[in-house]
């Protein structure tokens, strides 16, 4: 039986389009609103839901996501509450769910126990930002035994000679970080994304998605044309951040942003 992640990428491929991967921080700005945010994303046509697990020291994240994690922690999000959020989502959706997290949060519970709890809650994959393949033996062993996917990152600074190590460790999909830096919106995209994805795909058999800094419909279309999936994070998180004074506006703002962006994955690239 195929898993949720593979099924979703197959379906998108059959439809002749890339997957839309949406990132939000679990519990931002609070549990109830976050659940509504996730529902909105799923109803809005998101193919993969990437849930940030809030951490006190998110060193790979830009300011937008740092503040989101801070809001979530201040509202009382804990590891258990994040799992609870996933269980709530699973009551109404089979969308693939990937955790975007830092290793201390996984290691803290005992790696195998964490993997088991996450799977039981309905998590399909783990992207552990500060865990390179070199340090991932324990997580990989547990994940392989239990059927959890492990998403790994390829960066612009990753030499070709390193890709086989990443390829043999990764499952679900590979995440290409489109530029050096932290998460956050950017005005323009790096120019060589297509070449980079092509080079990765020579050595990787699973889908390759592209993320970091993608925030407009044009950028989504541009990246969708050359990859299997597009990750949008900060642009969505900002819909929450900019409506904190009136949280009733979060869902409408998100809907509007999403319908604009999601159209990008099916559309022809801008200027084409």
């Amino acid at each position, binding site marked *: 039986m195929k898993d949720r992640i593979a099924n979703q990428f197959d379906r998108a491929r059959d439809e002749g389009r890339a997957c839309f991967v949406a990132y939000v921080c679990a519990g931002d700005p609070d549990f109830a609103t976050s659940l509504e945010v996730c529902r909105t994303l799923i109803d809005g046509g998101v193919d993969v839901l990437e849930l940030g697990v809030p951490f006190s020291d998110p*060193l790979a994240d830009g300011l937008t996501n740092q503040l989101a994690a*801070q809001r979530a922690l201040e509202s009382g999000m804990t590891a258990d509450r994040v799992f609870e959020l996933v269980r709530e989502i699973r009551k109404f959706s089979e969308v693939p769910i990937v955790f975007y997290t830092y290793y*201390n*949060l996984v290691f803290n519970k005992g790696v195998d126990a964490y993997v088991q709890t996450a799977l039981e809650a309905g998590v399909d994959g783990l992207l552990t930002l*500060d865990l390179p393949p070199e340090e991932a033996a324990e997580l990989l062993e547990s994940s392989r035994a239990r059927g959890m996917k492990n998403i790994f*990152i390829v960066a612009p600074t990753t030499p070709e000679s390193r890709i086989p190590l990443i390829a043999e460790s990764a499952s679900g999909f590979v995440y290409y970080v489109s530029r050096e830096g*932290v998460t956050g919106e950017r005005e323009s995209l790096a120019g060589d994304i297509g070449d980079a994805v092509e080079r990765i795909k020579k050595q990787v058999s699973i889908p390759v998605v592209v993320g970091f800094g993608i925030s407009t419909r044009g950028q989504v279309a541009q990246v969708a044309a050359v990859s299997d999936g597009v990750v949008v994070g900060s642009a969505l998180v900002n819909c929450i951040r900019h409506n904190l004074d009136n949280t009733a506006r979060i869902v409408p703002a998100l809907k509007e942003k999403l319908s604009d962006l999601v159209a990008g994955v099916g559309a022809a690239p801008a200027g084409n």
Partner: protein
Amino acid sequence: MTVQTNPAPRELLPDERGHFGPYGGMYVPETLMTALYELNEAYLEARRDTGFQAELRRLLKEYAGRPTELYLAERLTEELGGAKLYLKREDLLHTGAHKINNALAQALLAKRMGKKRIIAETGAGQHGIATASVCAKLGLECVIYMGAVDMERQSLNVYRMRLCGAEVRGVEAGQKTLKEAINEAMRDWVTNVRETHYILGSALGAHPYPMMVRDFHRVIGRETKTQILEKEGRLPDELIACVGGGSNAIGFFFDFLDDPGVKLIGVEAGGRGASPGDHAARFRGGRLGVLQGCKTFILQNTDGQIELTHSVSAGLDYAAIGPEHAYYRDKRRIDYDQATDAEALDAFTRLARGEGIIPALESSHGAACALRRAAGLGKDKIVILNLSGRGDKDVREAAKQLGEKLP
């Protein structure tokens, strides 16, 4: 030609990916992995290169002021009525602390690697000022990240860095101290990794930093050993140093690890109490975890979120301890003790009054332990404190803590 003897097992640590037993490693985003491997390679090459080593030795002597004296604190020794108390005077170094040993060496290495831009974090400001000075000397662009609370506590050092041409960027996130400054420095490094070298200031973070920083501070222990043998004709009974990340301590202790008669004691910040958030004693309140590049003892809550910390000294106010310290604690080779804010302040004034030497508040934690222990030992014993930095930067904070009003 001298015959190279086989290195002792400790010389083989860490392994090639930075593990000290279960501690250390390389826990960083993928973007930095290649930079860390390149840095490791460049460092190992430089370590073998006699030209690099000679240039470093020359600068340590002529620019930094090495060797530093090993000084017998006669009046304090008399007052304590116990062991002879020696001070290793790292406080006499240029820029005021041991930090210059590492900053100078890493900046030379960065130049060798063709990096033109330097970034660093700083807590107390000592590593920041050392880095800013060295960058001015070597003509490198320099950006220092510092928590906003620390900038307030150490405003004089902020201005010193600026005088040397560095840009000091305040960090407003979280607790606004050292940990947040490191996060921000790492974000900068991830963004500008191709042209930038990150001069990490303690024996912390991802491999090769804990190894490299340790090696650059080993000169402290090497000199101490030669000096005490000259002065006393024998090895000391105890070595004592404060431990934030632990760079001064590991550099001081390293060349004594194979001398079983020498007791080694690292002193953590006991802060204002034992409750979470009131101290920075990782071996008392912490447990194994992963933070900012390495696996080590970390102050964290049951959920794995990093705890707030407190210490009167900005340089010890940090939630994780260098991985090599965790390793030698397991091996029972290094013991760890604590000094509270109040004990450190007491030692601060006792050194000033007893010897006319004002220690940094960080070093005052080591001093508190040294005064306590020396008093309890016989007159035939020898205790050496690594006086890792001078207290000029702390005068304002100390006056505030001691309830005195400055004119």
